[in-house]
């Protein structure tokens, strides 16, 4: 099996075990979706209107939770040095970690979203659009998140400033993702927004590994 696939599978397995980041992200997402209506009120029409935004922000925050550990575990026990020395280019390593993060957080969050959308009284068609928007958009969250994770990997409490670093950069994803659903609900069709989101995600996934690899190198003292 290629080094890329090995790394990817190993990270996904680590995250998928009980108490790992996958379970944490899903629980957090569900909790946010539960708390929000408690704060907003049970007006079903209002909840349907805010569902897209609430769930999108909830998903982004849930994915954020495990980001500070993206490189840190390997950094602390020295395996990151070994990985950096391996024949696999550091950019591909970063891509593998991004993919692993998405498989273990972004994808499960996306799969859970229709259930949570039900709690918000979101009609079927917007729910479908929400599902696809999360499917297309969460890779960007993992990708841009990886940049933040690699920049802060040497910090003991790096997790604190990581959201500050990457949340502004993720604004377009939230805007296009939730906007697709709003547009659908207004009868305008969410296709344009989804296309913009896809472009954003594609660019993020393609370019982030370079920034992340550069950051890992500088933190390893390279």
């Amino acid at each position, binding site marked *: 099996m290629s080094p890329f696939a090995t790394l990817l599978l190993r990270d996904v397995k680590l995250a998928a075990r009980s108490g790992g980041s996958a379970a944490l992200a899903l629980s957090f997402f569900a909790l946010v979706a539960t708390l929000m209506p408690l704060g907003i009120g049970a007006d079903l029409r209002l909840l349907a209107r805010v569902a897209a935004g609430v769930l999108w922000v909830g998903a982004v925050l849930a994915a954020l939770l495990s980001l500070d550990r993206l490189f840190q575990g390997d950094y602390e026990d020295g395996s990151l040095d070994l990985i950096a020395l391996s024949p696999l280019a550091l950019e591909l390593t970063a891509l593998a970690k991004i993919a692993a993060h998405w498989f273990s957080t972004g994808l499960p969050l996306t799969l859970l979203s229709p259930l949570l959308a039900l709690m918000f009284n979101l009609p079927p068609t917007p729910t479908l659009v929400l599902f696809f928007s999360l499917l297309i958009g969460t890779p960007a969250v993992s990708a841009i998140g990886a940049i933040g994770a690699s920049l802060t990997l040497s910090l003991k409490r790096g997790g604190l400033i990581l959201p500050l*670093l990457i*949340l*502004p950069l993720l604004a377009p994803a939230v805007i296009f993702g939730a906007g697709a659903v*709003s547009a659908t609900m207004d009868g305008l069709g969410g296709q344009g927004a989804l296309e913009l989101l896809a472009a954003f995600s594609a660019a993020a996934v393609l370019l982030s590994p370079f920034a992340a690899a550069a950051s890992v190198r500088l933190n390893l003292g390279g």
Partner: protein
Amino acid sequence: MNWLFRYANPHEFMRLSGAILPFMVIATALAFAVGLYLGFSVPPDYQQGTTVTLMFIHVPADVVAEMAYGVMAVCSLFSLVWRHPLSDTAARAAAPLGAIFTALGIVTGALWGKPMWGTYWAWDPRLTSFLLLLFLYFGYMALWNAIEDETRAARAAAILALVGVVNIPIIKFSVDWWNTLHQGESIVSGKIAPVYLAPLLIMMLAYVLLFFTLWMVRIRTAILERRATALMQRGAP
């Protein structure tokens, strides 16, 4: 490129900047004096009334806020690619300045919004983009402060600045798109009557000059502080 590296030497930079600084201070003061005089001598706008005077301090703040980030990004590029020694200091010095101009842009924009839309914050796309820009500045400054090793901090911050500069057009585009979707408000529309152009341009010049003057002072201060630190470390037993 070589001429730029000649002034990479801190001594050369101190010499050159020390010579230029008095002129910059005078030019800044003059620009403000003329700009403010003209700004308060214009007739009220037929649509916006006297609130048009807010344009003379809002638009320049916005312009410098974005320019400052551009300056930070260019310095970051020099730092990463050409390892220009003063670039790190220069980039770091620009950040708090950029943040202040951004904050001013937001505050003056909100104060302009109240008489125009009836509310301080109506999610005008420009104000929203600038709010995100403010967070980008905060993140940059936080990263510098969080990493202890100065060389590492400099390079990490440089990467962050470059990632940010690529994102800023995307953020602005997405916020604009969001605004058209939700049919929000917008402060400044295209055309400016010629009578307002002169004060606006002079105030913009004043703000730009103020930025560069303060930036230069901050870089000079940082150079002296580093020399002091070096002396203290050498003197330690």
